[in-house]
């Protein structure tokens, strides 16, 4: 291959977001041969390859699939459309002019001049270093996702006596997985007074196996020098500070950390796209276009999702928008994040994706996704156009671990006399 090529659309990442974006772009008039997926791993499917548990695809396929099965459905569609992809191809940089520089064993260093770019790099796990837990650096401390890869793909058990810090979904899933493989999971400790994972995972992964979940608790010491020998867990007060005198010692050889996911946006920053301080993902408009014209984002690189079904939906939206951009169908916007209607997150809503809407470019119905910052019971999700409340929907429970959404109609956003749409949580 020549080390300089040109493509209408380059998609960075061949996981669920990248695959769904590619399929949507090809199905919306972009010739498949003008698309290129760059994937750094040795196979398509991304993180789904190690998510062997069931529960994927209920929305998309109306059946309950495992991660690899869900990925295979999209892989088949991408392959049936003959969308080109490169495996083992690591993208090093993206310039604001959309020149993608990458490296692979097969091609060496190469550049792709792209008409449009879709960012679909996913996210990574917050690590021990970000937590400042005192103690030595013994073997046996793993992020939950690393343990998941070791057990499900490499066929290794990282330990036998396990404590898990953080009740994110991967931690809960791994509590069950390690239990099934014969390990003893002593406890899951969660700093917050609520779990960060889906309710169904608490039922299926902890309750089913009698694994205790200790809310408002954290690990305050890791014991052991060469290998973990135990951890100390303490209760925390309402400021999340450990309460002296509540220390409990757990003997264990392994500590799994499931303490949050961070969108992986080094490439995004390099391209010059501004990031949101709340999501750590790029700020985007109604087309999921970042601050750099022609660079779009979707999936966990944009904001961390709990359901892959929503990733696929969102990625399809980015794929359609990118196809339209390449074909010149979008109104030329030199600055994708200026003008338009501002979407404001208020009163318990931490953020919205997108955060800016240009009504002329939006689809007939636009899905606005968001998360709340705490537990809300019997509350309402409200949408305001200017000062006027236009949506008011009751929700029995809302929690930070579960993404919410509202739908906005294009027809309602024509000839308007307001410039702000507010999404908020209200008690009544």
């Amino acid at each position: 291959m020549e080390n300089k090529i040109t493509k209408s659309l380059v998609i960075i990442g061949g996981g669920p977001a990248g695959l769904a974006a590619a399929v949507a772009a090809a199905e919306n008039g972009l010739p498949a041969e003008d698309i290129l997926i760059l994937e750094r791993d040795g196979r398509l499917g991304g993180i789904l390859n190690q998510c062997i548990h069931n529960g994927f695809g209920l929305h998309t396929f109306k059946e309950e699939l495992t991660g690899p099965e869900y990925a295979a459905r999209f892989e088949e569609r991408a392959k049936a459309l003959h969308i080109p992809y490169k495996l083992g191809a690591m993208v090093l940089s993206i310039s604001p002019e959309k020149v993608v520089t990458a490296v692979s064993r097969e091609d060496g260093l190469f550049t792709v001049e792209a008409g449009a770019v879709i960012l679909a790099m996913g996210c990574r796990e917050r690590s021990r270093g970000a937590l400042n837990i005192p103690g030595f650096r013994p073997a046996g401390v793993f992020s939950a996702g690393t343990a998941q890869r070791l057990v499900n793909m490499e066929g290794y058990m990282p330990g036998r006596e396990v404590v898990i810090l953080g009740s994110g979904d991967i931690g809960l899933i791994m509590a069950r997985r390690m239990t099934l493989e014969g390990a003893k999971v002593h406890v899951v400790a969660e700093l917050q007074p609520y779990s960060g994972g889906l309710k169904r995972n608490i039922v299926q992964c902890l309750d089913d196996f009698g694994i205790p979940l200790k809310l408002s608790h954290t690990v305050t010491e890791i014991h052991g020098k060469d290998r973990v020998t135990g951890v100390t867990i303490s209760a925390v007060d309402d400021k999340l500070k450990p309460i002296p005198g509540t220390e409990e010692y757990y003997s264990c050889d392994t500590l799994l950390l499931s303490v949050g996911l961070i969108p992986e946006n080094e490439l995004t920053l390099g391209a010059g796209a501004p990031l949101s301080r709340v999501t750590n993902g790029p700020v985007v408009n109604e087309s999921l276009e970042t601050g750099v014209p022609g660079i779009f984002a979707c999936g966990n690189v944009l904001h961390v999702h709990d359901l892959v079904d929503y990733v696929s939906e969102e990625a399809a939206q980015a794929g359609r928008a990118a196809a339209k951009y390449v074909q010149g169908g979008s109104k030329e916007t030199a600055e994708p994040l200026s003008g338009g209607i501002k979407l404001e997150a208020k009163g318990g809503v931490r953020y919205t994706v997108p955060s800016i809407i240009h009504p002329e470019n939006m689809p007939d119905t636009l899905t606005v996704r968001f998360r709340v910052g705490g537990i809300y019971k019997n509350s309402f999700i409200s949408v305001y156009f200017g000062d006027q409340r236009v949506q008011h929907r009751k929700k029995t429970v809302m929690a930070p671990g579960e993404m919410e959404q509202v739908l906005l109609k294009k027809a309602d956003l024509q000839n308007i006399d307001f410039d702000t749409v507010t999404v908020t949580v209200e008690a009544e």
Partner: protein
Amino acid sequence: METKSFICINCPLGCPLTVTVENGEVKSVTGNTCKRGELYAVKEVTAPARTVTSTVRVLNGERPVVAVRTKTDIPKGKIFDCMKAINAAEITAPVHIGDIVIENVCGTGVNVVASADDELG
């Protein structure tokens, strides 16, 4: 009459279900937002079941293990017996999604099938 509460696990909504039971018979289900919730509640009270997912060692494959699942859910009480059978099983590459790995696992009438592909290594 007895009431049991639990959380529906059919989908991520996680509806809080309340079931009233009389003489082992379900009298009412409340809290569900769809039909599946009602079916789940009845099943959870009378015959709880789960899908088991794990991995099986692959011979001659690209990878050491391949993902497997029970084709449908199996009685909750058989989960660990099913895991024993899965851990004793081996499969030879190439393996494709849907290939039967264990037939009628632990007498449940349910097959354990591959849920990922692995080619000859």
